[in-house]
């Protein structure tokens, strides 16, 4: 089917200095679902639109199946796109919406309708083929947008936050259906989202962008367990990782007067920098409340049923700072309790350049 390659591709919007996408290098494999994730303004949508041909590429190249499409117009790229607001043609029926691209290609009416029916079957849209988009629910519209893409049997699917206009419950459900559909069709897919949960659950690999620069591209598990830098560490995971400037405890990195546990290799690698220049990162689920560790005071207790998150105020580097600790559900901790925070899992260390220090 199709492989996609970004080769140092950049986009600079007219009238701006900073590139919206800066020398992006990405290789997307055949049949892969790659998620582009990042905060707003990170350039993830711009990167997708560059691949779609809706944005000019100022520098570098883009290839689909080893064919240079850098300057090709969208219709010559054999791609289908699902837009955030679905961009359905309001005055056309669902069937006409889905058949539109085929009609432009000059496919015969019978073939068009056959392929539309087939796609409608996959997406449970058969009863709605004669309706106009305004008479559909949000979830149905989303499926029509998907159908419009499927009907074309393109080389690549491009999806620009396709679930963000759905309500929370439907979003979770559609997320699973979408991932399943993509796996069944086996079409290379580039998926843009700002929601890191969506990225982690759907992506075969996830590319994290910030300020137009690719931070890391890896399997979701690797992003979680070995974030390449401080930004990825803080962006992936919910609630976010605790990131603190390290204090110097006996020449090694520490939090609030307590040395953080590090493997020997990491400790040796970190030894090149003074402890005060390092950043310590530890996820709430890798901390625990216990009888010993960093002393602090619980100020907020968030009960979620299966688990709870305790915000603990600690004394760190002479200031009071808050860290989040995961605790079991139905915790006994109350606001105002004095607690001690201990370590219960891996601790990440980032150097003065914000990059991960690994042993």
């Amino acid at each position: 089917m199709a492989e996609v390659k970004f080769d140092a591709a950049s986009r600079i919007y007219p009238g701006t200095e900073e590139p919206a996408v800066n020398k992006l290098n990405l290789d997307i494999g055949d049949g892969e679902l790659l998620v582009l994730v990042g905060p707003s303004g990170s350039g993830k949508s711009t990167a997708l639109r560059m691949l779609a041909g809706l944005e000019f590429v100022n520098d570098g190249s883009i290839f689909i199946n080893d064919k240079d499409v850098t300057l090709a117009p969208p219709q010559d790229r054999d791609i289908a796109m699902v837009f955030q607001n679905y961009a359905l043609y309001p005055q056309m029926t669902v069937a006409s919406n889905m058949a539109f691209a085929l009609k432009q290609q000059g496919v015969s009416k019978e073939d068009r309708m056959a392929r539309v029916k087939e796609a409608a079957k996959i997406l449970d849209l058969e009863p709605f083929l004669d309706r106009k988009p305004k008479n559909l629910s949000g979830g149905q519209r989303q499926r029509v947008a998907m159908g419009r893409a499927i009907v074309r049997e393109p080389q690549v699917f491009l999806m620009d936050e396709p679930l963000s206009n759905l309500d929370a419950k439907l979003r979770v459900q559609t997320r699973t259906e979408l991932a399943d559909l993509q796996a069944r069709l086996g079409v290379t897919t580039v998926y843009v989202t700002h929601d890191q949960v969506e990225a982690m659950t759907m992506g075969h690999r996830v590319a994290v962008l910030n300020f137009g620069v690719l931070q890391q591209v890896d399997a979701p598990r690797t992003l979680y367990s070995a974030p390449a830098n401080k930004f990825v560490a803080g962006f992936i995971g919910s609630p976010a990782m605790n990131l603190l400037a390290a204090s110097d405890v006996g020449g090694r990195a520490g939090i609030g007067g307590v040395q953080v546990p590090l493997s020997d290799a990491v400790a040796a690698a970190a030894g090149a920098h003074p402890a005060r220049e390092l950043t310590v990162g530890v996820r709430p689920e890798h901390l625990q409340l216990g009888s010993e560790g960093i002393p602090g005071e619980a100020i907020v207790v968030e009960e979620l049923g299966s688990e709870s998150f305790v915000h603990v105020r600690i004394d760190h580097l002479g200031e009071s700072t808050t860290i989040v600790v995961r605790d079991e559900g139905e915790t006994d901790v109350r606001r105002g309790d004095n607690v001690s925070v201990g370590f219960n899992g891996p601790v990440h260390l980032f150097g003065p350049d914000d990059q991960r220090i690994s042993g």
Partner: protein
Amino acid sequence: MTAATSNAPSREEQVKALQKREARRRRLPLLPALIFTILITQIPFVMSLYYSFTDWTVTPPSPRTWTGISNYTDAFTNSFFREAAVTSIVMTVSSVLLSVILGTGVALLLDRKFFGQGFVRTLIITPFLVMPVVAGLVWKNQMFSAAFGVINWLLEAVGLEAVEFASKYPRWSIVAVLVWQWTPFMMLIILAGLQGQPASVLEAAKVDGATPRATFFQITLPHLRPYLELGVLLGSIYLIQVFDHIVVMTGGGPGSTNVPYFVNQRSIGGGWRFGSASAFSILVVIATIFIATFGLRVLSGLLEGEEP
């Protein structure tokens, strides 16, 4: 049940009373304007409705006698009125259609971003702001005139003979001025429609492989339909009443007397036959009401919103 046990108003009655008060409060501020409007529009209308059933003429003064519908039946046998009606229809239809087509073209051009866009848009709107009388005079003397008109100067410059447009083609000269004045209005309405079209729909069409031509005819034009209908409706209502242009440009010269001008000729223009003139104008009102009813439906459709 509570009402049965006590005389105090039930909750239902209390709510009703509150709703009534609310409604009164909303209507009260409208009242002065409403009364004023009734005074200056509806009373004269009822008066002319009454005149239209009489044979009232001012000179020579004659007693007003009730003649029933004879003024109306006269209208359909009167060849001058029929001619005026045809002129009205031809003038209105051609100027509305031409200005809608031109307005759509200009709107499509103005919908793109370019340097000085706002300035150009304002310049293009100006003809609509010119008083009809002034527009008529400017075109008659500075554009159409055989002696010092710009168009004839151009014609002579390429070796053609000068034409006194306003007297040789009175009807089409007026249509030309009307199109010049109303194209900006149509352009404004269509431009609003174009700007209400989500950019992503056009991008989706691009990705779907539609040529610019296909995008325009299959997506943009259907999207513009309610706006086009609105433009045609409003244009028709105004252009059926054209009067000033005719007065200053042709004075009702051959083929340029429309119904309003004809009504004027019959009444204060020298005919002094207010009875039959009233009947003619009532006929125009009826025709306009037909168009307006159709148009209001379009308007409400537009307000319902078509975008998902």
